[in-house]
């Protein structure tokens, strides 16, 4: 199988370049459960200067997000047989490259932290847990599963243009996760914080986030729900 991988080592290279690799795995064989990450690790045996992040190799940690044939995804859960050759791999778009496929996620996490992604409840904690009914808990489905891999936010043109001001789909999904939580007491403050032409309203429902999310979550729907709550609050 043929691969074309984005290479950039700031210590040696003045500009990034694409490097070709070939692996001795046939396309038919690769259908037997081999993932893109397996291929990348084989390439790394050939050329140990290739740098990438990886950890759990099963789509839970979100480390190995990258741009695969023009589309963001996790290498560890992308089956090789679904990919057209040569497989073109690039770092996540819109973030500064540290080296090869590794990007600097600082801006992404800054936006994530800005929505206060934790429960705010000033009541004295009860003896056991803060309880929710099964119906209340069901509202958090499709929100809490986010692994913060960054595929959605770095696929969003609004984030490319305003990464310092627009929270981005991942951050907004988490903002709604706490707005939707019946145990949280800061709903109004959270809505106040997001009612901003940049922080929330840069979203123009492009829906790249929904298209690429490796966990099949729907940030656009969450953003729509935030807007609905703001409208309800206003009228």
């Amino acid at each position, binding site marked *: 199988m043929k691969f074309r991988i984005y290479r950039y080592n700031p210590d040696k290279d003045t500009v990034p370049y694409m490097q070709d690799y070939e692996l001795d795995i046939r396309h038919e064989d690769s259908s037997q459960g081999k993932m893109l990450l397996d291929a990348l690790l084989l390439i790394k045996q050939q050329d140990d200067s290739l740098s990438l992040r990886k950890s759990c190799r099963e789509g839970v940690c979100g480390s190995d997000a990258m741009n695969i044939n023009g589309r963001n995804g996790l290498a560890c859960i992308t089956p090789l047989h679904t990919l057209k050759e040569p497989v073109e791999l690039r770092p996540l778009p819109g973030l500064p490259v540290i080296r090869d496929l590794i990007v600097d996620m600082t801006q992404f996490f800054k936006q994530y932290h800005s929505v206060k992604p934790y429960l705010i409840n000033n009541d004295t904690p009860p003896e056991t847990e803060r309880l929710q009914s099964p119906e209340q808990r069901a509202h958090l489905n499709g929100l809490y599963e986010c692994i913060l891999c960054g595929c959605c936010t770095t696929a969003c043109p609004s984030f490319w243009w305003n990464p310092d*001001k627009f929270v981005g789909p991942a951050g907004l999904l988490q903002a709604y996760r706490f707005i939707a939580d019946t145990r949280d007491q800061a709903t109004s403050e959270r809505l106040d914080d997001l009612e901003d*032409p940049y922080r929330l*309203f840069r979203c123009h429902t492009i829906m790249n986030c929904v298209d690429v999310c490796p966990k099949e979550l729907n940030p656009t729907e969450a953003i729509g729900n935030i807007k609905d709550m703001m409208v309800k609050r206003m009228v």
Partner: protein
Amino acid sequence: MVNRVVTGAHYGLRDWLIQRITAVLMAVYCVVLAGYLVMQPYQDYDVWIALFSSLIVRTFSLLFLLSLFFHAWIGVRDIVMDYVKPAGVRLVIHVLVILALLLYTIWSVQILWGM
């Protein structure tokens, strides 16, 4: 002046809502007008004049155009916010767009009621 990234202008919801509502108004107007044109295959200058001499048609046409201008203002402002970074230049463009749209509004009234 310090150069810090600031957000928190606390607007956006109203504009977003206006854009949605004006979009619906424009869609309804277009469908009704298209329906009329299909039902009335024979069109000439006199039929057109007769149509636009009705107060209802003029009023809804003006409503359509006002919706279009509001919609355009929010859309153009969004584009400028994305692509024009210096605040001064952005403000000048905003003012120019508002002036142009105000002129279009006056022009629209003149066309609709001047026929």
